[in-house]
């Protein structure tokens, strides 16, 4: 509860910041400190210190799973602010509003990580989506940004419609929005229940950019300002998956056998399309868009398997994937040329950037001793443990091998190709931060339980 209230308040505060001051540094400082406060408040929530006590009538439940995810989402956003905050200021003049919108998104994230009623799910997803439509189009004079925004809005609105329809159908069957009520007694599928389930599945797949509902993703990620792509492709995407698994476990957990195959097919298709298409991209930004689809395919493993390992793994996956992708985007933002050739010879001019970027790419590819390896390991283990979807595991593994191709293309460009590197201005603090994140990625790669255990033990001692 702390997180929801404070993030909403912070969003309003940030909006007023823009009115009272024009100093971009001050605004950024407020945002960074505000987010830190938000993170601490959320951590305290986990420890049992609730600032507000309102009767929620069972609409929201704050369990460790959701709160842990919040912490990771807020932490990643905080790192994102530090790394790419300056680049946000280059997008346009309304810096304060960008921060405000991001805080609203975070508010939505803390709702979808704790909803217990389908209405709350709808609310959370909308609170996430609407600020994103605006952020996508925030580069007002850029035609591509406008196009992306409009496309995102139309498609998003459509899928929201599907979701509402699904919720309505399920309400018609069960007479309640409450997930526990819905879960109770649904052991066999009735036609109306099936329709509702499918509509919800499709709309969530759309939000998570799973195939075949992924077509908006490359255009939107490519068109929107790169800073915001970074945010959308990482933290928001992970949040959608948390909502996804929460919804399907909460409402349709008993019916898993019925829909497991369908989700497995979606996962396989997502993996396949994301990876194969990424191979053919010429722009790193677009490649990362497709790579985010491919990674979504892996995150869907959690939904297919739906056991303890899967849920733990999803949290870990979010952290590993977000950290690495935010890092790569931060480097990408400093480049003027987004093509693979633009990276040629980067290792000579900017060894720190190249080395850290390599760590992030290795992590995304899932090489051991990086966090990404454990992310994939957990997902594969969860699916193997489940036992019904060995074919999906093999598909996933082969697709992971394909992903090496395009991630390593960047490494090859940086290290093995001669090129005229672009002028890149970086500060010492930026480099230091990148090294810090790379260190975290490697540390998590060697001691994956460190993160989770630290958080757990901190609260339950």
């Amino acid at each position, binding site marked *: 509860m702390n997180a929801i209230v404070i993030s909403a308040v912070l969003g309003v505060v940030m909006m007023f910041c823009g009115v009272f001051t024009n100093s971009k540094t001050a605004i950024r400082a407020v945002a960074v400190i505000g987010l830190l406060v938000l993170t601490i408040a959320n951590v305290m929530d986990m420890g049992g210190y609730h600032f507000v006590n309102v009767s929620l009538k069972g609409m929201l439940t704050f369990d460790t799973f959701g709160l842990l995810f919040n912490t990771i989402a807020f932490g990643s956003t905080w790192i994102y602010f530090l790394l790419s905050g300056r680049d946000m200021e280059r997008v346009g003049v309304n810096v304060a509003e960008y921060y405000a919108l991001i805080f609203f998104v975070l508010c939505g994230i803390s709702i979808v990580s704790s909803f217990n009623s389908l209405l709350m799910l709808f609310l959370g997803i909308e609170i996430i989506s609407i600020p994103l439509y605006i952020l996508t189009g925030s580069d007002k004079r850029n035609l591509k940004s406008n196009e992306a925004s409009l496309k995102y809005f139309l498609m998003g609105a459509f899928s929201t419609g599907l979701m509402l329809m699904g919720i309505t159908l399920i309400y018609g069957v069960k007479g309640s929005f409450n997930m526990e009520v819905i879960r109770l007694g649904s052991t066999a599928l009735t036609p109306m229940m099936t329709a509702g389930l499918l509509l919800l599945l499709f709309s969530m797949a759309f939000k998570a950019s799973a195939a075949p509902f992924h077509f908006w993703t490359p255009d939107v990620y490519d068109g929107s300002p790169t800073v915001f792509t970074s945010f959308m492709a990482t933290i928001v995407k992970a949040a959608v998956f948390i909502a996804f698994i929460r919804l399907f476990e909460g409402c349709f957990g008993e019916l898993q056998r019925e829909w497991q195959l369908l989700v497995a097919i979606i996962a396989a298709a997502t993996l396949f399309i994301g990876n194969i298409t990424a191979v053919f991209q010429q722009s790193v930004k677009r490649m990362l868009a497709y790579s985010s689809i491919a990674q979504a395919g892996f995150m869907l493993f959690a939904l297919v398997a739906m056991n303890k390992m899967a849920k733990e793994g999803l949290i870990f996956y979010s952290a590993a994937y977000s950290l690495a992708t935010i890092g790569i985007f931060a480097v990408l933002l400093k480049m003027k040329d987004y093509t693979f050739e633009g990276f040629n010879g980067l290792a000579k001019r900017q060894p720190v950037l190249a080395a850290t970027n390599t760590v992030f790419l*290795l992590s995304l590819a899932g*090489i*051991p*001793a990086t966090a990404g390896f454990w992310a994939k*390991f957990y997902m*594969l*283990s969860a699916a*193997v*443990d489940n036992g019904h979807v060995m074919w999906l*595991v*093999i598909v996933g*593994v*082969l697709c*992971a*091998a394909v992903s*090496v*191709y395009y991630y*390593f293309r960047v490494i*090859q460009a940086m*290290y*093995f*190709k001669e090129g005229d590197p672009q002028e890149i201005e970086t500060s010492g603090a930026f480099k230091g931060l990148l090294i810090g994140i790379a260190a975290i990625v490697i540390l998590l790669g060697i*001691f*994956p*339980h460190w993160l989770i255990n630290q958080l757990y033990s901190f609260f339950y001692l």
Partner: protein
Amino acid sequence: MIPVLLIVIPLVSGLLAFLIKQEKSVKTWTLLTSIITLVVAILPFALHKASDLHTDIAWLPDLGSSFSLTMDGMSKLLCLLTGIAFPGIFIATWNTTYKNPHNFFALMLLMQTGLIGVFVASDALLFYFFWELALIPAYFLCSIWGGERRVAVTFKFFIYTFVGSLLMLVGIIWVYFHTPDHSFAMTSFYKVNLPGNQQGWLFWLFFLAFAIKMPIFPFHTWQPDTYEQSPTAVTMVLSGVMVKMGVFGILRWLAPVLPLGTWAWGDTAATLCVIGMIYASLVAMQQDDLKRLIAYSSIAHMGLMGLAIFVTSSVGIQGVMVQMFNHGVNIIGLWIVVELIERQFHTRKMSELGGLAQNAPGLAVMLVVVALANVALPLTNAFVGEFMMFNGVFGSKSSNYHYIFMVVGGISIILSAVYTLNMIQKVFYGNTNTLTASAHDIRFNEKLVLVILLIGIVVMGVYPKPMIEATQHAVDAIYSKMFVKLP
């Protein structure tokens, strides 16, 4: 304690080597490190206390995985091979210059860390960890310092092995969930008793990874290109030590864990090995490039090792152990000679060389001995291994076709004599040409390494007993787990 030292010394020293910018100092530094590692690698043969050879540190208790390292006879031997290979390579290539030498040598040491880690890990997850970690430095070494087509070739190599290891990871996870105590420990893996049909497909998940690494036909296509394009120092590590990871993997993680699968598919795998032996020998006969010739001859030799394992016999496995070590020594010797030739004449084409023996007798003697060891002439070290392996194939009780394997495999040995002697003749005898007329003999450091190698080759060929004794226990342990009562 010893295995930890073996990993920590090259790791720490390798990381430090990134900071030493001067070429001379970084070369000395890495050489010293590798010699210290060698000394530590010799120690286990003198120590018999279990606590010295075994380390178990909690790593991921929730997953049932621990940082557990054990050295049995096989690990000892392979660690010794790694320990010998690196200083040997550093000394023999002392005069080669690299751009950014600090990065090169640092990556070499990191690769050594990974290799030793693979050989001593007694936890499946840890094994996988090191298995991949050995690959990353190799990837960078070949891609940065290799020949003209290096990037594409190395990439092929990387993707190939990565696919294999990911499939193995799935296999490892599957076995893990079926261990009685949900643990990645080797002892738990050995306790797993999976039904036959599961072992059948699990066998392929593991086998692919190891077959690509060894490489076994038809998964070998990355190998000749990679050997040709890599800098020679790296090729030596790849062919001398890294391919042994595949054999080692089969002996430690495949055959004892999935005996039924190995038995069921053993003949298929052995057939692939035999086809590879003949095929590689035939291709080797057509080669003009020395590096490619040796690369193909290595495929043939690895095929024989695979064959000896998959027909399942105690003598054969013993032979494989001996041969793993000897093949490493011999092939590194061959590469050193190739490197010397290439550095002097800037060509590796046999057609452009000739008559070298007249001006460089030292080099000629060295090559002839190493090459004869490569064809397993009696009195050389390889003879012992190959004899035992063929003996094992002949006496195999679990294979139906072992006589055919024996005959066809024997033909490949004859073929190997053909191309090796042909190589010696073309390179060292005959008339000199303009290129080779002004040839000079080899330097002292190169002589030193080669002489040590030669002594090793002969001594191990005449008196292999210590090596056999050191590995006897490991062989018995593996064989007893592999042996399936025939219906």
